[in-house]
C-alpha cells in the first residue's frame, strides 16, 4: 500500500469512528430529551396540583385556630357551669358516666379533678340527662353513643326515668285505680257535715270581773 493510500485509509477510519460517536450521541441524547420532556410535563402537573393545595389550605391558618378558640371557650363555659351547678365530684362522675375512663383525664380548668374518686352517676341519671351534658364535652353532635343505643331513643330515656318510681306505674298496668269523683252528681255522696256553712263556734266570753 502506498503511503498516500494508507493515509487516506487512516483518515476514513477516523471519520467513521467520529461519525459513530456522533450517531451514538444523537440517538441517546434524543431519547434523553424525550424522557426529560415527560418529566417536565409531570412536574408541571405536580406544580399545578401543589399550587391548588396551597390555595385550598390557605384559610386553615385562620379558620382552624378560630374554631379551636371558640370550642375552647365553649368547653370552659360548660365545664365551669357543670362544676358550679353540680359540684366538682358529681361533675366528674357525670362526665365519667358519659365517657368511661374520662375521670382520669379530669377537667382542663380543674387540675384537682384528676385526683377525685368519680361517683357512678351514669347508673342513676337518665340517658337524656347524660346526652345533654355530653354536648358540652368536646363530642361531635349526633355522634354515636359509646354505650350502644341511639341517643334520642325515647323508650330508653323514659324507661330509665320510670325505673326511679314505684313498681305500680313502671309495669304499665292496663287499669289503675281511678281518682275519686267529687261533686253533687258523684256516685258516692258523703254525708254533709252540719257545721259546714254554720256560724263559726265562738268561745264563751271571759268574765270581766
Amino acid at each position, binding site marked *: 500500500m502506498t*503511503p498516500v493510500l*494508507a*493515509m487516506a485509509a*487512516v483518515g476514513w*477510519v*477516523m471519520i*467513521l*469512528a*467520529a461519525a*459513530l*460517536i456522533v450517531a*451514538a*450521541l444523537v440517538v*441517546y*441524547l434524543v*431519547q*434523553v430529551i424525550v*424522557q*426529560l420532556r*415527560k*418529566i417536565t410535563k*409531570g*412536574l408541571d*402537573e*405536580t406544580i399545578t*396540583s*401543589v399550587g*391548588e*393545595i396551597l390555595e*385550598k*389550605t390557605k*384559610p*386553615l391558618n385562620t*379558620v*382552624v385556630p*378560630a*374554631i379551636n378558640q*371558640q*370550642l375552647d*371557650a*365553649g368547653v370552659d*363555659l*360548660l365545664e365551669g*357551669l357543670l*362544676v*358550679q*351547678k*353540680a*359540684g366538682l365530684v*358529681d361533675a366528674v362522675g357525670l362526665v365519667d358516666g358519659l365517657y368511661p375512663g374520662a375521670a382520669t383525664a379530669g377537667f382542663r380548668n380543674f387540675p384537682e379533678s384528676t385526683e377525685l374518686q368519680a361517683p357512678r352517676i351514669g347508673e342513676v341519671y337518665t340517658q337524656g340527662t347524660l346526652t345533654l351534658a355530653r*354536648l*358540652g364535652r368536646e363530642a361531635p*353532635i349526633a355522634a354515636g353513643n359509646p354505650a350502644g343505643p341511639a341517643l334520642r331513643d325515647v323508650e330508653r330515656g323514659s324507661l330509665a326515668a320510670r325505673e326511679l318510681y314505684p313498681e305500680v306505674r313502671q309495669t304499665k298496668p292496663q287499669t289503675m285505680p281511678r281518682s275519686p269523683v267529687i261533686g253533687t252528681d258523684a256516685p258516692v255522696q258523703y254525708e254533709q257535715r252540719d257545721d259546714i256553712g254554720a256560724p263559726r263556734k265562738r268561745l264563751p266570753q271571759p268574765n270581766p270581773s
Partner: protein
Amino acid sequence: MTLWWIGDIVLLVVVLPVVVYLLRGVLNAATSIVPSVDRIAQAAAAGSNDLDAVQLLLTTQDQVEKTIATAANYGGSLDVILDDARA
C-alpha cells in the same frame, strides 16, 4: 502512520464504548424518573381533590360560633334557674 492507526483503534474500541455506556446510563436514569414523577403528580392531584372540603370549614366556623353562642345563652339561663352546688 502507526500512531494514526493506534488512534483510530483507541477511538473505536475505547472512546465509542465509553460514550455509549455513559449515554445509556443517563438515559436509564431519565427513564426511571418518569414513573416517579407521574406518581407524584397523581398523588398531588388526589391530595388537591381531597382538600375540596376545606372550604366547608368556613361554614363550620360559622356554625361553631352560633352553637357556642347558643350554649352560652343556655348556660346563662341555667345559671339563673339552677342553684349552685353546695360547697
